[in-house]
Every structure is written in structure tokens, then in C-alpha cells.
């Protein structure tokens, strides 16, 4: 990629150090829990020990006797204001506080408001709740059986636990292709429930000003504007009006999709502040965060792949059951209940495909948030990359060779997929070949053969994924009817510095740096002199927020387009200053000069000054612009990962020896930040492949509800990642970029699984479920008679 700006300007392609880091490194970040307001009260939550139980009574007497406990809020309290239920982003409903029954363990039952955090906790201990346990539904397959206990008895006429059926593709043509196939492989695959486990838990401070009637909520949210609108829609009947609601999303310690939903705690704290008239802080502890916040994955997939004997894939069929817990509280675009799962044909030119997904209610917390997976892409990629390997195994072909044979060739882009997407650009073979070259693929295969002869277990796994990010074009993408555009507003100050505000919200992605670099690239103002702000709904333009790798494809594009509007006006001002016609001016970074007379020029700084001191007659003063960018298509980043593992025959432990990640996210704004995204994403991809899982026992008791048992990898478990890249620009994005935040999380798990299966393939193993814990692998070794 060509770099057009100097390091001083730091436009596209410069590894500029992150502008936000000095405050984070020095402990000067400003997170919700750092904020202290005068007279602030504290909230703590009573939670259910049962997964499904009728609430017979709640006795608050003892709690209210504790000095400092001011109020105990129950479902009955909220029911008076009709706030005991709330809508989810998927147009389902979810309890704020129960009046009748609880539907998952750790569900909010009551909230204690007290003068200190400690007293609030004592108050929670003193609230007495009498439960009558009800039959628990944990297994989504059993949930859909006739006669299963109905969980959502609140819904009139609801007689089962089925949420939705969704399908895509040509069923008949796919069936025909399977009937005619020379080879068919099948695999069931479960992607377990996992949690984003962001380092900062969720929380808020709700501050209702009774005099002005204005509600300010400091909230750990990835989508402050959408939250404001939801609040206005939900609480309009109690007098909250959108212009009197201000959502401020301060620094956020990781979101990954888990901070998109509205949690009951936010609503309870807000209601309490409105009633009491004081600011109320609610911050989850780690176990509450792990046990009660929305979850990701929990997909039960059955996939079949049809092919010719020579390895040409002809058709794909996937049937999936999605466990959504007690509510469909995902944050998918409205028309996509299974997110963008239909990317499941992956990087391959597959003529026929059909996919169907059913959603089921179970007695678990709401599931289906897009944990760094851009809407079910992780599940889709895991499945296609697994069955592709199984096909290679069946045909005794090298998995790299099979992939190279079936990749969508680069000449076919833009490519229409069988399930309806238009892939914007790609060169898949180039990425895989680079990964193979960098890791020394043939030598590894030779080493593996030698080790195998000695009884050692070594495996090499490949994953060639295609991502789908940047939701999205307004024709198809909305959340609760709000189109998924995003926005930027840029103001140039008289001295040529700038402030820019965006509708998104960084949670660690580095927007304060990369957005400034986009504007630096377009206007030639040094990125260091461009201040970026997000997250305050009173000041920032409206946008749908940051998740699903959408910030660069949408708000980043808006930033570039707004800058181009400014450049257009700047050109007119320059023409006025240089006394030439605008057509006679040429732009090079940071200045307009007269065509053929480059010594006659005006810098952007001179032009900015003139915009306020000497603007042309008939033109408005000032230099600013707003853009609401509606992307014409999504972007399709891709990559090829190769993983090498060794397996300990004594313990079953899988050790990642090497991991080579070649990514292509189009043109790159800041290579260092992209590298950081890839490193973090790979670690977050490794985690569910080897360690993380939240499961439930038959009574719906959460297993792994603390960091003792929810195994987030540390630096000690994480291998030294190797990264490289190819650059295939997006043809429709203003500066050719694609999203990258989730590529590695999507691509890494199947590479690791494929490596483990590869290490065991000579023993007849074709599939291993995740997480591939030592015990799970050891049981396979034991069964195959190779455990030490």
C-alpha cells in the first residue's frame, strides 16, 4: 500500500502511536465506575438461585431495617409504571424484574438502594425470597419436544419454546445436487455458549435532574444513540422524552458485543433515580457479569457437503438449532434473526446451498449476542472450515490443495454467493499461499510424518475464512427500524486544527487515532491536531454504534466523505484567495495549488483561517461538514491461518507451537492497530477452541460462572502469534478499507481444531468438539490406545 502523507501528518498507513494510550497507561482513563456524583447512591441486585421458579413472596422488611438501606425495588414496584418488562433489540421482550417467576439462574429479582456499596450488599443478603421451583428446560432439543415445559408463559397463546424459523437458499436445487453427488460428508458440531468477559463489567450511573426533567445516564454501552431512542420509546409513557435523555458512554474497558444490549440493571437504576431524585450507581461484579449478562454462540449445527471425487465442492446444507436462553435478546439486524450466518459457504465457489436455523427458548440468560463474530459468522466459518477438512480427509487430499481447488477465483469478484451475498473483493489463493510459504508448509508435513512414525502427535490445521462486516446498507439493515448508517461531523477551527464527532463508540479499538488518521489523509491536517469525540448523545451525530466490525466501513467512511465535503468548500476558498477558478486548482496532501504554477498555493491551514476571516462574498463562513454514510454493500475481509499443534500423550494437553495468520482487510489505516486487533482476536479465538465454555447442569445451574472456572487465557497460555497480510482493497468503500476487528476471532478456532484433528487423523479421528480441553483430548487418546 502506498503511503501519501508524511509522518507529521500521519494519514493512512502510518503506525501512529495511539492517542488514547497515555491516559490509559497512566491510569487516567475515565470509566463509569470512576465517575462520582454528589449525593450518589448505590444499587446492588438480589439474584435468583433457581433457573426456573415461581416467586411466592419477597420480604424486604429486614433489609429496610439496615441503617443506610433506603429502598428495595421489586417487580411490583416497576409494574406500577409498566416498566417490569422491556423490549429487546430483536422485538422480543425480557423481564426487568419479575412479578411472577424467574426464568434463569442469577436473574435479577430485586434491587437494593443504599448509601454505600457495602450497605447495599448487606441489604441484598437480608432480602428474603420464597421460591417454588418449576421444571427446568436446559436442552434446546428437549425444549422443542411436544409437552416440554413452556418457559414464556407471559406470552399469550405461546404454547411451545420455539422462537423463529429462518431459512435461506434454494432447497430443491441443493437437494438435487446432494442426490447427484459423488461424495457426501456430514458432521454435527456444537459451538458452546461463551461470554465476552470484557475486563470492565457492565454498569451505569443514572442521574435524573428533577428540576429540569433531564435524565443523564453514564453507561457502558457500545451504542449510546440507539439506547437513547430505546429509552425514549420504552419510557415515553412515564414522561421521558428523547431531548431530555442524555446517554454518555465514557471510556469502555472492552465490549465485544456484550455491551450492546440493554440490561435490566440499567433500567432499574434509571427508574430508581427518577423516583428518588438522586444519582444511582450500579456496577456489576465479575460473577454477575459472567452469570447473567447476554451470552454468545450456543449453536447446534448439522452440516453436509457434497462434492465430486476430484474434490470439487458442489453443494452445502446446514441445519441449526440456536439456544437463545429465556429471550431473543441478540442485537442482529431486524431482518436477520440468525445474523449473517448465510456467509456459511465461506471462501468457496459453491453453486448450491441451503441453510436453516431455528431458535429455542431455554432456562438460561439471554443468548445470541455477537461476541466479536459479526453476527454468527464465527459459527458459520467454524462449520464450513470443519466440513472442508473432513472432505479432504475422506478424499485423502491435502486440505490446502482442496481449498485452492475450491476458492472463489479472484476474477469472479464481485461474486454472487449461492446464499445471496455480493462479495466485494478477494484473492484467497494469494493469502493461503503466503501463509503456507511463511510457515514452511511442506517441511512441516515432512516433520509430521517423521514424528508420527515415532508415535508423537503433531498436527497442522488450516482455516481460510471469509468475513462479512460493516452493516449495513439501509435497504436490508436496521435495528428496531433504525437504518444502520453511521455518521461523522467535522469542524475545522480557524487555526487549521479540527474536532470530529462520530456516531460510533470505541471500546479499545483506537478510534481517537484511526479516525484522526482518516481525516489527516483527506485534509492534510496532522492527525495529532484532530480531536475525536464519541459517546455523548448530546454532542455526537446519531449513529448505530460500534460492533460487528462496522466502525471503519460505516463511520470511518462517513469521516472521509465529510472531509471531502470540506475539501470541496476549501477549494472554493482557495480559488478566491489565489484569484483563480476552482477548476484550475490541484489538490495534493494539505494544499491546493494552481495547475502549472505549483509555487502559487494555499495550505489547508491558510484556507481554514480564511474561512473565518476572509471568506468569499456569498459563501457561508466556517468550515465544517456532516455526513451520514449509507454503505452500498458490506465488506468482506478474509484470510488464511495455519496452526501447528503438539499433543501431550500423557495429559491430552494441546500446545500451539506456531500460528501464522495472514489477513486481508483491504487498505489499512494504522498497521500497528490492525496488528493489535489481530493479536487480540487470535487470543479470543484460541480461548473457546481450547478453554472457555459456560455450560449448565440439568437443574440449570451455571457451570463456569466465575474466573475460577471460566478460563480466559492469559499471556502464559497464549502462543507467540505470527502475522502477515495481503491487501485487496474494497472497491466500494471510500478509501478501500474493510473491517478487521473480528477476523481473527472468526478464523482462529477452526484452524486450531483442524490442527488437533490432523494430529489424530491417522487414528481415524475426524472431528473434535470445542473446547478441546486436556480431558476431552485425553479420552480420545485413551479410546484410540495411544495415551501414555
Amino acid at each position, binding site marked *: 500500500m502506498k503511503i501519501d502523507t508524511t509522518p507529521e501528518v500521519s494519514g493512512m498507513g502510518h503506525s501512529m502511536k495511539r492517542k488514547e494510550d497515555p491516559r490509559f497507561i497512566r491510569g487516567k482513563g475515565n470509566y463509569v465506575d470512576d465517575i462520582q456524583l454528589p449525593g450518589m447512591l448505590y444499587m446492588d441486585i438480589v439474584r435468583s438461585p433457581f433457573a426456573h421458579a415461581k416467586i411466592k413472596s419477597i420480604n424486604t422488611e429486614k433489609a429496610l431495617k439496615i441503617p443506610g438501606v433506603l429502598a428495595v425495588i421489586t417487580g411490583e414496584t416497576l409494574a406500577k409504571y409498566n416498566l417490569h418488562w422491556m423490549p429487546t433489540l430483536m422485538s422480543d421482550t425480557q423481564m426487568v424484574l419479575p412479578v411472577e417467576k424467574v426464568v434463569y439462574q442469577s436473574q435479577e429479582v430485586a434491587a437494593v438502594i443504599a448509601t454505600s456499596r457495602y450497605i447495599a450488599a448487606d441489604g441484598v*443478603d437480608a432480602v428474603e425470597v420464597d421460591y417454588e421451583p418449576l421444571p427446568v428446560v436446559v436442552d434446546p432439543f428437549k425444549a422443542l419436544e411436544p409437552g416440554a415445559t413452556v418457559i414464556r408463559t407471559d406470552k399469550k397463546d405461546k404454547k411451545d419454546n420455539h422462537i423463529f424459523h429462518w431459512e435461506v437458499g434454494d432447497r430443491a436445487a441443493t437437494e438435487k445436487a446432494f442426490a447427484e453427488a459423488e461424495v457426501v460428508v456430514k458432521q454435527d458440531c456444537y459451538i458452546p455458549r461463551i461470554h465476552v468477559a470484557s475486563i470492565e463489567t457492565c454498569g451505569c450511573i443514572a442521574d435524573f435532574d428533577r428540576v429540569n426533567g433531564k435524565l443523564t445516564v453514564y453507561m457502558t454501552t457500545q451504542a449510546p444513540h440507539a439506547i437513547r431512542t430505546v429509552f425514549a420509546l420504552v419510557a415515553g409513557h412515564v414522561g421521558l422524552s428523547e431531548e431530555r435523555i442524555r446517554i454518555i458512554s465514557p471510556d469502555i474497558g472492552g465490549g465485544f458485543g456484550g455491551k450492546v444490549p440493554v440490561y435490566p440493571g440499567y433500567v432499574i437504576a434509571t427508574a430508581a433515580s427518577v423516583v428518588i431524585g438522586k444519582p444511582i450507581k450500579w456496577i456489576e461484579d465479575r460473577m454477575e457479569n459472567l452469570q447473567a449478562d447476554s451470552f454468545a454462540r450456543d449453536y447446534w449445527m448439522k452440516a453436509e457437503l457434497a462434492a465430486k471425487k476430484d474434490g470439487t465442492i458442489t453443494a452445502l446444507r446446514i441445519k441449526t438449532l440456536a439456544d437463545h436462553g429465556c429471550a431473543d435478546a441478540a442485537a442482529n439486524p431486524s431482518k436477520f434473526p440468525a445474523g449473517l450466518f448465510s456467509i456459511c459457504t465461506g471462501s468457496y465457489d459453491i453453486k448450491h446451498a441451503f441453510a436453516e436455523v431455528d431458535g429455542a427458548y431455554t432456562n438460561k440468560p439471554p443468548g445470541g449476542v455477537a461476541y466479536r463474530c459479526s453476527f454468527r459468522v464465527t459459527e458459520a466459518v467454524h462449520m464450513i472450515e470443519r466440513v472442508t477438512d473432513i472432505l479432504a480427509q475422506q478424499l485423502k487430499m491435502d486440505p490446502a490443495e482442496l481449498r485452492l481447488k475450491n476458492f472463489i477465483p479472484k476474477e469472479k469478484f464481485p461474486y454472487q454467493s449461492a446464499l445471496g451475498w455480493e462479495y466485494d473483493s478477494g484473492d484467497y489463493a494469494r493469502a493461503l499461499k503466503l501463509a503456507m510459504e511463511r510457515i514452511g508448509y511442506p517441511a512441516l508435513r515432512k516433520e509430521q510424518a517423521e514424528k508420527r512414525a515415532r508415535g508423537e502427535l503433531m498436527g497442522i490445521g488450516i482455516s481460510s475464512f471469509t468475513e462479512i462486516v460493516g452493516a449495513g446498507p439501509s435497504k436490508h439493515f436496521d435495528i428496531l427500524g433504525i437504518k444502520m448508517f453511521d455518521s461523522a461531523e467535522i469542524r475545522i477551527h480557524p487555526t487549521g486544527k479540527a474536532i470530529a464527532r462520530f456516531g460510533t463508540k470505541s471500546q479499545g479499538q483506537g478510534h481517537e487515532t484511526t479516525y484522526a488518521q482518516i481525516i489527516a489523509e483527506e485534509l492534510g491536517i496532522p492527525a495529532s491536531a484532530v480531536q475525536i469525540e464519541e459517546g455523548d448523545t448530546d454532542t455526537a451525530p446519531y449513529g448505530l454504534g460500534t460492533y460487528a466490525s462496522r466502525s471503519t466501513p460505516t463511520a470511518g467512511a462517513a469521516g472521509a466523505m465529510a472531509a471531502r465535503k470540506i475539501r470541496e468548500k476549501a477549494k472554493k476558498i482557495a480559488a478566491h484567495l489565489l484569484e483563480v477558478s476552482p477548476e484550475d486548482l490541484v489538490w495534493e496532501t494539505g494544499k491546493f495549488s494552481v495547475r502549472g504554477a505549483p509555487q502559487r498555493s494555499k495550505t489547508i491551514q491558510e484556507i481554514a483561517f480564511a474561512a473565518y476571516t476572509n471568506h468569499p462574498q456569498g459563501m457561508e463562513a466556517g468550515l465544517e461538514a456532516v455526513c451520514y454514510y449509507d454503505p452500498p454493500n458490506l465488506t468482506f475481509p478474509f484470510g488464511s491461518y495455519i496452526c501447528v499443534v503438539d499433543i501431550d500423550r500423557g*495429559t491430552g494437553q494441546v500446545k500451539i507451537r506456531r500460528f501464522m495468520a495472514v489477513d486481508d482487510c483491504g487498505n489499512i489505516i494504522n498497521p500497528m492497530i490492525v496488528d493489535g486487533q489481530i493479536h487480540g482476536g487470535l487470543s479470543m479465538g484460541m480461548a473457546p477452541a481450547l478453554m472457555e465454555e459456560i455450560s449448565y447442569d440439568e437443574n440449570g445451574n451455571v457451570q463456569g460462572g466465575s474466573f*475460577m472456572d471460566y478460563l480466559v487465557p492469559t499471556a502464559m497460555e497464549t502462543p507467540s502469534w505470527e502475522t502477515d497480510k495481503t491487501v485487496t482493497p474494497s472497491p466500494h468503500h471510500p478509501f478501500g478499507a474493510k473491517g478487521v476487528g473480528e477476523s481473527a476471532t472468526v478464523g482462529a478456532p477452526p484452524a486450531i481444531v483442524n490442527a488437533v484433528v490432523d494430529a489424530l487423523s491417522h487414528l481415524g479421528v475426524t472431528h473434535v468438539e470445542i473446547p478441546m*480441553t486436556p480431558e476431552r483430548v485425553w479420552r480420545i487418546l485413551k479410546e484410540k490406545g495411544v495415551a*501414555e
Partner: protein
Amino acid sequence: MIPAAFDYHAPTSLSEAVALLSKHGDTAKVLSGGQSLLPLLKLRLGQAGHLIDIGRIPGLEYIKEEGGMLRIGGRTRESALERSEVVRTRYPILLDTAQVIADPLVRNMATVGGNLAHGDPGNDHPATMLVLGAQVVATGPKAERVIPIDGFFVGLFTTALQPDEIVTEIRIPAPPARSGGAYVKFERKVGDYATAAAAAFVTLGASGLVERAGIALTNAGPKPVRSTAAEKLLTGRRPDAAALGEAARAAGQSATPSADRRGAADYKKEMAGVLALRALTKAVQRAGGR
């Protein structure tokens, strides 16, 4: 993660601390490094009316070889073991152990006495102390007494300590010539309690036969497990692969682990054997046997 209320005491002498313990009896808990106690209180899994912080009492942190013994002060931090020259050169098994306890932040606070006194079979020091034949010195209202390690662990979270006694010293006999020990731990991630872990200590005779063997397991039952069956199998034998294998299998058989998120009982039992073999092999190497 908010503890219930408690009274906090910070005595500056041992006698004052013991007097406070005597006065408050069962409602009092000794706060040493606090790395097990505070999480219990914060999770409200345990409650204490009175915390007796022994952090201000002088003379409880030391590591010294004296009179044929390694003497470790009861409040000695795990991180001090990691940095100790005498531990590194003369008692590598102790370094093995200290290095795999939780994480560096915890080890800066956690103490050797606390690790033993907590009576948690998942703690790492007990197995090591069992194979080393250590002694625990406890100070109570009357005097101090020496408790042999074999009688120290009574049951789950229960030791031979009286409620008014404080661990003031741990004594480890200096290793004879041709001795070697090792502690090997298998954990799900760094900082976790062991899925399985084994301590082994061997002394070889001049002819190369095993004179004395100690084998013990972490997290393999309600209290730390010393496998005398495995020790007997090895004593008097040449420590070759066959003998070590037999002993390790016997050690595995002595494990009675319970299932949890670390694994099913049968898996943990097998892992106890695998880890015992790894610890024994390393111990024999260190003893100069191979």
C-alpha cells in the same frame, strides 16, 4: 464481592495475637497473606467476626539453614522462596512449588504458613512438605509445639492447629547426599489449582538403589495424599523406568479425587499417576540417578 462486616485487629507481638485468638475463639481468623481468606470473605462463603492480622509482628519472615534444618518463618512470602539462594541451590523442589502457586501478584502476599494452615488439599505446599518430612511449629497461649507434617492435615480445611495457635515456623530436614526432589503441576491455566500435581523426593544409596522415597499428591482427595504404597514399591530398588512406572501407578491408585470443572474423577486419578511419574523422573535426575 463485598464482605460482611468484621472487626480488624493488628497486634504487634505474638503474645498479643495469641491472646486475641484465645479471647475470640471460633469467631476469629488469622490474617496472614490473606490470599485465601479474603476471597472467601468477599464471596461470603465464609464469615469471620474478627480478623487478627499478624502482619505487624516482627520476626516471622526468614529462610535460613540452621542445625541441619531449613527454617522458614511462618509468614514468609512465597515470592521470598522464589528469590532465595539457599532454596534455589539446596531445595529446588521448594522452588518448583513456589513458582506454580497462583500468580506473581498473589505470591508477593501469600505466605508459606498460610498455605499449610488453610488445610486446602488444592494448595501446593502440603504435598512437598509431606515428601520432605517437614515439621510445623505452632505457637499458642502456653508454648510452642512441633507438629510432624504427617499428623498436620486432618481433613478438608482442617489441620491439627488449635483455634488459638499460629504457625510460626516450618522446618525441613536438610537433604542427605544423593537426594533429589521435584514438584510437577498440571493446571488448566496459570494460577489455577492443580488438575493433578505430584511431589517426589528420593535419596539414593552409594550403590544407586533408592534408600528413601517420598511421593505425595495435590488435589487428590479431601486432604493432601501421601502414597506410602508407592514409596514402599520404590525403596530398595534401582530407580529405572520400570520401577518408577510401578511406583507412579501405585501413587495414582492412592488418589481419591472428586469430579469438578477440572475433570472427572477417573481422569484426575490417571493424571495423578502421570504427574507422579514425571515428578519421580525429575527427582531421580536431580539426585544424580540418571
